[in-house]
């Protein structure tokens, strides 16, 4: 892969707030046009990392480079290359859509003619069909999020950082929003997204999992599943007549590596397929049992638990 294909480069990034280390020697690269998912619990260091990459925060140690601009070239130059959309705030409620967009355009010093062309193009892109003089407060959450996305890419940035962009909107609006993210990635923009939704993480090209300021896993969703669960995974559902103590028996079975409860069901990681199938026939009669592909959720539970151990 040639050098210019790398869109975000982070080397040994450390951010400390006084004694507290929010980000601890993190390194990764993101390629141009990639949808890069950033996962982890609140406080894991996701937002801090993004704030450094947007030029809102200076690293305590390490080096970051975004779209060929490093923090040594000046954060103002960095800011021209990135778009940022935060979970907390999208648009000013007491301004109309066109006032909001014009405000962003003026802050970014986008010339008038380019601004009106971009505005038209981007609003068509999100399929926006309402009046531009609508007050933002009157828009439904999903539409607001989309217009906010437009505001963050008005200046045609190379990298777009979306910090939990779909928090609090309907599933349909989420799906539409992810459609837009994919279209932008195809158009060559690097999309850097944090999310709490596993189905959204599945749509990323690669996913990084952060925990306590460090990246504990980074790969494509497929690879993560394969590498984390080399053994087959089964889902079992006990019948209401299941004999007491069955769970202990499953846990004690030598062919079983691990059992994780999932609501009424259980996910079982199996060491030896043949032995497990015999065990199911003999002991778990009446249980529903079928092989499943691990979900990203399985992966993260495993990884985070593993790291906690």
């Amino acid at each position: 892969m040639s050098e210019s294909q790398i869109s975000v480069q982070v080397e040994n990034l450390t951010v400390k707030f006084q004694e507290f280390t929010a980000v601890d020697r993190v390194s990764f690269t993101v390629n141009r046009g990639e949808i890069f998912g950033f996962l982890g619990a609140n406080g894991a260091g996701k937002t801090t990392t993004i704030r450094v990459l947007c030029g809102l925060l200076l690293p305590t140690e390490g080096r970051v480079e975004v779209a060929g601009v490093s923090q040594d070239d000046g954060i103002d130059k960095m800011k021209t290359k990135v778009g940022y959309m935060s979970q907390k705030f999208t648009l000013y409620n007491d301004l109309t859509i066109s006032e909001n967009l014009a405000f962003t355009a003026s802050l970014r010093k986008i010339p008038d003619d380019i601004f009106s062309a971009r505005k038209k193009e981007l609003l068509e892109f999100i399929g926006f069909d309402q009046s531009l003089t609508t007050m933002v407060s009157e828009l439904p959450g999903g539409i607001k999020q989309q217009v906010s996305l437009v505001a963050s890419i008005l200046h045609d940035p190379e990298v777009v950082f979306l910090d939990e962009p779909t928090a609090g909107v309907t599933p349909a609006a989420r799906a539409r929003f992810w459609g837009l993210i994919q279209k932008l990635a195809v158009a060559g923009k690097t999309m850097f997204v944090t999310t709490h939704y596993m189905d959204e993480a599945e749509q990323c090209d690669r996913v990084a999992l952060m925990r306590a300021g460090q990246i504990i896993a980074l790969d494509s969703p497929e690879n993560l599943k394969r590498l984390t669960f080399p053994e087959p995974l089964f889902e079992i559902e006990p019948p209401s007549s299941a004999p007491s103590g069955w769970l202990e028996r499953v846990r004690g079975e030598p062919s079983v590596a691990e059992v994780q409860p999932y609501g009424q069901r259980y996910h079982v990681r199996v060491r030896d397929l043949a032995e497990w199938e015999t065990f199911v026939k003999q002991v778990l009669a009446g249980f529903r049992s079928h092989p499943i592909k691990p979900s990203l959720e399985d992966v993260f539970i495993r990884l985070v638990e593993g790291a906690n151990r």
Partner: protein
Amino acid sequence: MKQKFNLGRAVAVAKKEVFHVLRDPFTLALAVVLPVLMVTVFGLTIDFNPRDIRLTVFDADRSQASRALVETFQSSGYFKVKYGRRGESLVRDLDRERSRAVLVIEPGFQRKIGSHLNASAQVILDGADNSTVGVIIGYLSGIQRAATSKIAKGISSASSERGIGLRTRFLFNSELRSDWFVVPGLAVVVIAILSVLLTSLTIAREWENGSMELLLSTPVQPFEIIVGKLAPYTLLGVGAVIFVYLVARLGFEVPFRGSHLLFFFSSGVFLATSLAQGLLISVALRKQQIAMQVAMITGLLPSILLSGFIFPIESMPLPFRILTSILPAKWFMIISRDVFLKGAGVISLALPLGALLALNIVFVTLATRHFKKDLEP
């Protein structure tokens, strides 16, 4: 590599701020209605020299002399006379707050005067309201003099010996008009409300919204944000000063004896100080609710209570007198009144002007430092 100040971005921030103000009924009311209300209420209602004080008279003498005494009270313009009924309790009207003072004239009042004895009449005051009592006592000595000469003239046709006449002249406000005293001071109060209060909300609102992050993710510079944010409030403040000036001159006919340049210059300095104070509050607290309360306590209340606007600083306890010296409002209050009424110039106002400028530098430095430290990564 620092970017240069860009006017376009500052203007964009200012324009947005104007939209916020215009579209928020609360802020708009604060900005427009409050100054008007303050000027009307304070200008028209505060009167340190009450007139038409209700006086109940019990005249047991019913003589020419006693009538002359009552007449003097009446014609002074300060009292409104009403006769009490015979046999009625003397203090009944005071009790029921039907009058503020009672005048009792004993029988033999005229006879005593005629025989050159000491004649006296009794005045009973409602001590529960000590603000009027002080004023009434002040009036009484004048009335006593007037009554003495009037009665003397009426009784002995031969003009009696003339007492020494005491003539008092009040400089600068010869009629002792309270509105002349109050209205120039309103410039202080109105600026304090508009600038400190509204500015204290503006930055806090962006933090509370989370929109400050978004602003900062663009190349906008902290200084452009400050300029853009403060510009509308500066204009509003200038507008308020002009409004107060016009109301004072045209509405209350307050004389303006000093230099307009000096007045508007010091208004500008005070305005800048108040804006910086509001900004400091906003930047330091980041929450609109708390910022507003702190602005009320440190900006609005002192400008009304501790600036000498209503309550004279000279009569405050020493610690408070010292405290008032760090209030920009106190100094601008002196400047505003003295420029209006005394025509004071730069030299006689050197102390208040110097103090105001010094406080201005302190507040502006603190505010910009704090703001820069906060916003620069």
